[in-house]
């Protein structure tokens, strides 16, 4: 077939951050396909040099608005790992709630505002305000609910205030626990409606398939790992988090300010679908029911179904948050654990030289922070590896296979399919830039 196609989408809409899609097919043969990331690089790793590990959380939170809690927790984990500090069980539970609420918030935003318009044939949620007003109101309501929980727990979701190295600056008491629980109990009917909505729209999700490697946290206990674990993959890899570089193998490609990654295969995917593929047996029963209703069983090799995996996780993380909060309410919280460290002026936490890694599951996949710290607690070297950056290589491999399967469609249909593919990954481009400038060498 001698079809020629030229897809050139500038500043892709309905994704977080700035990216362009370029696909060139000449006479039926693929010449190039790229996801160009045109987000301006901010050089966080360079900026962290010379800063105290006690400030790193505040600074790196600003890498991203939607994954602020993820960066916060990963940064704190790296810092605590470097100085050999072990957080209390209570702290870990509170950190999990924060992470889970962020998962919920991010996934719901993605499902309702970024993906649903494509499945409903519109350009954004704006026309849906008139045609599907209940759906839009529900989306905004659920999203705000996650924020309200974070507000009670940590002051706010975007750039949380009370989560620091050492623990939390404020600990919820019974009133706060009740406040958070009530918000989540009220979310349950909305969550059921969300499941019904996606079930109705599921037939429109493309079933394009490509075998690849999936990477996520794995553990030997029965908890769906999010806060901590080893690094595992569907190709059987299992590593301690400090060996993360053996998986990420970051390498620079000419057209992307986001470095690419590959583990055992030529590319890998991290994120909700990867977590589902590796840990589905550990999901909350209600989440397992959603998976069954959607006909999903590991291993699912369909990238567009990342959105469906996110819905399964929404149910899981909502129920798990409720479970943790109910447990804290039953046993009572220890408010004396509240700590305000500041810059550690009072030396409330012992520091020494070290090298620490934080490896945490965030909405889009595995997030690594790695800090080298001197004896005064100052960062001498920093490395942040973002899930979206890890996925870019996989996205491009998907694009190379997809084009041949849809070559007979119109230009508009092809463009939409590619846009939807990138959106399915829910890229967080501000985070992973390490992203590229439009004018690049060789053009």
């Amino acid at each position: 077939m001698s079809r020629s196609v030229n897809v050139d989408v500038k500043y892709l809409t309905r994704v977080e951050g700035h990216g362009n899609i370029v696909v060139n097919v000449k006479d039926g043969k693929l010449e190039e396909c790229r996801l160009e990331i045109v987000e301006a690089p901010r050089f966080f790793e360079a900026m962290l040099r010379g800063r105290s590990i006690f400030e790193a959380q505040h600074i790196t939170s600003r890498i991203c608005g939607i994954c602020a809690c993820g960066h916060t927790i990963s940064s704190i984990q790296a810092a605590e790992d470097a100085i050999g500090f072990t957080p209390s069980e209570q702290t870990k539970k509170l950190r999990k709630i924060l992470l889970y609420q962020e998962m919920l918030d991010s996934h719901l935003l993605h499902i309702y505002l970024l993906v649903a318009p494509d499945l409903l044939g519109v350009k954004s949620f704006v026309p849906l305000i008139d045609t599907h007003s209940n759906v839009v109101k529900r989306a905004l309501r659920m999203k705000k609910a996650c924020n309200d929980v974070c507000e009670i727990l940590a002051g706010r979701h975007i750039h949380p205030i009370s989560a620091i190295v050492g623990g939390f600056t404020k600990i919820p008491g019974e009133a706060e626990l009740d406040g958070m629980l009530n918000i989540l109990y009220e979310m349950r009917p909305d969550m059921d409606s969300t499941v019904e909505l996606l079930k109705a729209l599921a037939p429109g999700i493309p079933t394009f398939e490509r075998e690849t490697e999936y990477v996520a946290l794995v553990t030997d206990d029965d908890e769906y790992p999010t806060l901590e674990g080893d690094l595992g993959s569907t190709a059987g890899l299992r590593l301690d988090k400090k060996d993360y570089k053996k998986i990420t193998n970051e390498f620079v490609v000419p057209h992307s300010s986001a470095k690419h990654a590959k583990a055992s295969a030529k590319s890998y995917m991290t994120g909700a679908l990867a977590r589902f593929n590796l840990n589905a047996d550990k999901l909350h029963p209600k989440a397992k029911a959603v998976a069954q209703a959607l006909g999903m069983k590991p291993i699912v090799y369909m990238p567009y179904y990342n959105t469906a995996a996110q819905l399964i996780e929404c149910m899981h993380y909502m129920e798990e948050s409720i479970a943790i909060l109910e447990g804290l309410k039953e046993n009572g919280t220890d408010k004396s654990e509240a700590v305000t460290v500041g810059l550690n002026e009072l030396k409330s936490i012992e520091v020494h030289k070290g090298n620490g890694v934080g490896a945490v599951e965030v909405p889009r996949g595995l997030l690594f922070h790695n800090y080298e710290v001197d004896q005064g607690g100052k960062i001498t070297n920093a490395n942040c590896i973002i899930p979206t950056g890890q996925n870019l290589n996989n996205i491009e491999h998907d694009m190379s296979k997809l084009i041949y399967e849809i070559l007979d469609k119109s230009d508009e249909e092809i463009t939409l399919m590619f846009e939807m593919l990138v959106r399915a990954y829910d890229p967080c481009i501000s985070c992973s830039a390490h992203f590229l400038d439009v004018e690049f060498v060789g053009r």
Partner: protein
Amino acid sequence: MKRKKVAFFDFTCCEGCQLQVANFGEALLDVLEAVDVVEFREVMSEKADEYDVAIIEGSITTPHDVERIKDIRSRSKVMIAYGSCATIGGINGMKNSFKMDDVKSYVYGESGKYFETIPTMSVGQVVDVDYFVNGCPIYPPEFVKILKYALMGIPYTVKDEAVCVECKANENECMYEIGLTCMGPITNAGCNSWCVNNGNICYGCRGMVKETTKNASVEVLKKYDIPIDWIMGKYDMYNKSSESEDMK
């Protein structure tokens, strides 16, 4: 009265401030009824040519950013800069403590030379801005207030008051009293002492108060015997861009 044409743009940022807007909940629909949102890349595919009010998030950090903000300014009647990245350069300004070549090669190695970056600037250092909403992230009640002023065409000036005023009103224990350094005394109020209310120190995300109010902070430092470099390090976190040259 015809609804004003409003557009949201983002430059170099974490997109957290536009997410704060998305977190208004169902109240967002009331805002959307009062204005006509004609462009907002993150959630809409529609675009427009002219705007009554352009709302800008993010700093200017590349030559491409400079071109783009000047273009948008030329097509907008009124411009609001919201979030510290836009109003004062924000965390992005920390890069200015280093040489551009150094940060490029530290992050990208050899390939560093392919990436363009200039010292971070606030939006106001490149084009004229009519309204400023400070904060990292923005404090939603303040954003709504200033948006209303902008829609009605009434000028708004940020009060020259330190966060301490709000902190005291909220009856917080002063961080200096427990031996920690806090940027409250030299930071613009308006956030209702958000961070100290939640048990943490103020990091100064809303930018510095003017000269007159700054003198009071010197007294605070003397009283608690705080070395000036503890403050300077924190000052550099959000305020470094003010040292860059304007491009107006």
